[in-house]
């Protein structure tokens, strides 16, 4: 066998953020002509490692070799010149430029950038690349009119036209429909055949199994192993990825992923009606329709999954249900009581609670303590005669929650802003479950959580279900939705389209609804 020199070699990379050691001496070879799956839980250091390679972070120690030579990558522009391109989870595109213009941005630099770009010539080149890869985009369309899946293609085309050798994709399947995922995977297969190297960052094993040639597993900033896909033992990889913290046999996530038995999950009949939403509509100040006559019911003991590509009105939907926004028209009935115009506090008192999507801007009060944050929303129930806060009770409850949800904090008087993203998420989830809500509205509640904690959250959601509560579970993660929902409805352009019961769950069917192809 010929020994092939890797195009990129990361050697003994260290990176620390404050007290957190994100990378503890990682060595990784990246070859052209193959897909390398970089697998690991949230917070394992995958993105950090690739950000180091892309010139966004300076490593504290370690060397980077590109094409056999040691380089100090100073910036993303430098990385691109070296043939490395990274597509982040949040695309870096100019929304009121066309796809073509976005690809053209930054193609020349310095004095040369004063010369007009020959767009016609560029378009021709892009067309060739599109044909070779199978990733098609309407180049004349403005980015803001393109769905997220297509925007991702623009990012990838941007890389390909620049002739990069290594393409890094950070969790690229977030917000893609299953059909789009298939298209992406096919394109990646085609591209590696032409000699491109791909680094595919993900926390989902089945994705790397579907597309990667080799799998590298990262946990807590350490590279624990590298395998050929054809030779891999899945159980070993999972163990490496999550450590010993999860009992795989009892795990909802892995039992579900292996699709062993659906019968193990109690399929109770839907109970009496808990929440009824009738013709809910929302228009913004300019009169644009954000939510379009949404109607549904939620029963006791039911988990209603809301799927959809983000940005189709999910956020406004949960906000209207919880009372953060007032609907333009329509009704919300909680156990028969009209709560459409009730305050958030009244809704909380009636048994609603909420896990907002955006943890930093809506989830926490950064300069309040962890303890105080854990009771935000129900703080007034901790009062003696509605006047004084009963901090003794707050403290004892907080102590329990911190323990139960393994919130990593020096003590409960620590300011919430000092917590890491994952721990803030845990705090939000702990707060919500602590209220024992009748109706829980959760928007991407597991985002950024490691697998053990995700498992815990899913368990708690199922626990609420068996306690007779209803859950509205909005998520971009279709796997997760299919795992726990009793019913899945899809949000598309502010409408709730389709509603599949558990026996009719079909990834591709839901995918069509997400793309607005079918249903209505």
């Amino acid at each position, binding site marked *: 066998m010929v020994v092939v020199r890797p195009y990129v070699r990361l050697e003994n990379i260290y990176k620390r953020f404050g007290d957190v050691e994100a990378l503890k001496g990682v060595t990784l070879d990246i070859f052209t002509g193959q897909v390398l799956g970089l697998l690991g839980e949230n917070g394992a250091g995958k993105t950090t490692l690739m950000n180091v390679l892309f010139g966004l972070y300076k490593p504290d120690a370690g060397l980077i070799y590109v094409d056999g030579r040691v380089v100090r990558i100073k910036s993303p522009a430098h990385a691109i010149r070296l043939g490395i391109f990274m597509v982040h989870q949040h695309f870096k595109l100019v929304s009121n430029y066309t796809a073509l213009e976005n690809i053209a941005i930054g193609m020349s630099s310095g004095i040369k950038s004063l010369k007009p770009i020959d767009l016609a010539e560029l378009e021709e080149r892009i067309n060739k690349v599109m044909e070779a890869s199978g990733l098609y985009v309407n180049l004349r369309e403005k980015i803001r009119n393109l769905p997220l899946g297509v925007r991702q293609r623009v990012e990838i085309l941007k890389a390909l036209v620049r002739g990069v050798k290594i393409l890094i994709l950070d969790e690229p399947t977030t917000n893609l429909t299953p059909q789009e995922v298939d298209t992406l995977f096919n394109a990646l297969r085609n591209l590696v055949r032409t000699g491109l190297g791909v680094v595919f960052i993900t926390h989902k094993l089945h994705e790397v199994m579907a597309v990667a040639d080799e799998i590298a597993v990262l946990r807590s900033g350490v590279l624990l192993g590298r395998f050929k896909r054809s030779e891999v033992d899945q159980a070993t990889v999972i163990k490496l990825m999550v450590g010993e913290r999860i009992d795989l046999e009892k795990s909802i996530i892995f039992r579900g992923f292996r699709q062993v038995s659906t019968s193990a999950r109690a399929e109770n009949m839907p109970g009496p009606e808990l929440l009824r939403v009738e013709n809910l509509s929302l228009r913004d100040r300019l009169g644009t329709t954000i939510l379009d006559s949404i109607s549904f019911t939620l029963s006791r003991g039911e988990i209603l999954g809301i799927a959809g590509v983000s940005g189709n009105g999910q956020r406004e939907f949960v906000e209207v249900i919880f009372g*953060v926004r007032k609907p333009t028209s329509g009704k919300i009935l909680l156990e028969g009581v009209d709560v459409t115009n009730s305050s958030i506090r009244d809704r909380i008192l009636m048994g609603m609670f909420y896990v*907002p999507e955006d943890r930093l*801007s*809506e989830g*926490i009060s*950064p*300069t309040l303590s962890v303890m105080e944050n854990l009771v935000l929303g129900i703080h007034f129930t901790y009062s003696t005669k509605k*006047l*004084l806060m009963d901090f003794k009770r707050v403290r004892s409850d907080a102590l329990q929650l911190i323990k139960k949800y393994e919130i990593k904090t020096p003590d409960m*008087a620590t300011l919430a802003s000092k917590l890491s993203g994952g721990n803030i998420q845990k705090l939000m989830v702990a707060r919500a479950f602590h209220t024992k809500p009748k109706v829980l509205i959760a928007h991407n509640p597991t985002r950024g959580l490691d697998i053990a904690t995700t498992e815990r959250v899913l368990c708690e959601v199922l626990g609420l279900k068996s306690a007779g509560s209803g859950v509205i579970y909005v998520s971009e993660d279709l796997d997760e939705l299919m795992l726990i929902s009793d019913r899945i409805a899809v949000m598309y352009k502010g409408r709730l389209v389709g509603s599949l019961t558990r026996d009719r769950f079909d990834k591709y069917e839901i995918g069509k609804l997400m793309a607005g192809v079918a249903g209505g």
Partner: protein
Amino acid sequence: MMGTQLIRLVKASIPYVFSVSLAFGIAGLILYLGGYDVVSSYRTILTASFWNFNSFFLTLTKFSTLLTMSLAFSIPYISRKFNIGVEGQYLMGALGAALVGLAMSAPAGIHVVISLMAGVALGSLWASLPAFLMARYNVNEVISTIMMNFIARYSVIVFAMSLWRDVASGHPMTIPISDTAALPLLNPSPPLSSGIIFSLAIAALLYFIVALTVVGYELRATGTNPRAAEVFGVNTRLLMPLSLIIGGGIAGFGGALDVTGYYHRLIDGMQSNYPSLGILIALLSKGKITFIVPVAFFISVIDVGTNALQRIERVPIELVLILEGLLLVFILVSESLRWWRK
């Protein structure tokens, strides 16, 4: 846990100690270049407040005013609103107290209480308009409260020049208020007003409210992240303007305390540079009442000390003011320059 808190406190105070030393260093350099005795100047600045009862009571009087003013700023600040209108609210509180003290007659105890209440009422009224504009039309409270300051300043002059004008004085001021409207003295000579007790009591009360009550919790939640507070059911649209009105009431109370306890009349310019100092103290203390009290006292000591410089060391007043300004700038800069961390 006590230990770690102590370490945190020590760590937090390092930059202040450092910048105060630096400020004194530069002040010393200037004094040295001006040919003054540096060591004795330092001694004057730091110890003048404690030389005799007269200067100590003067320090306490300034402390009382500064304390109410920084509290008036800090309560809205805790809910993330900037009450730049402390000056106007203080003046209107003073005007209200003076009006009651001049126009009304009532038995001793009752008269002074009504005067103080009038001060609180006018102060909060003065903050209500910006609060209303903010709540209803989203008008930035910084701009509206500054405008209200101008109106208050000239209202004081108009008031002091009309019915109760002190014709014997060349400066706009009213005649003294009735004796029944004067606060009792803690010490007759040198005089010390009982106002200091009221200011400290207000500080204690506000600390209690902010730290231990439900409203205080909501105020703090609103200030640290209004959006999160709103999403979790806190009525921020009520709390923010309310905090501004409460701040106005405190400032008005401060004005009334100074009229009934110290000046015994309404004087144009009686606010001196205290409103800005008060705001500065609150900002330095990040709105934390436990810090405001000692910081306000320290600033009063510096203020009395630098003023004593011109008498004792014959340093011209302009230089004294420059020195004071320098000290304050350095303390303020230390707040934002967190380079010692890394």
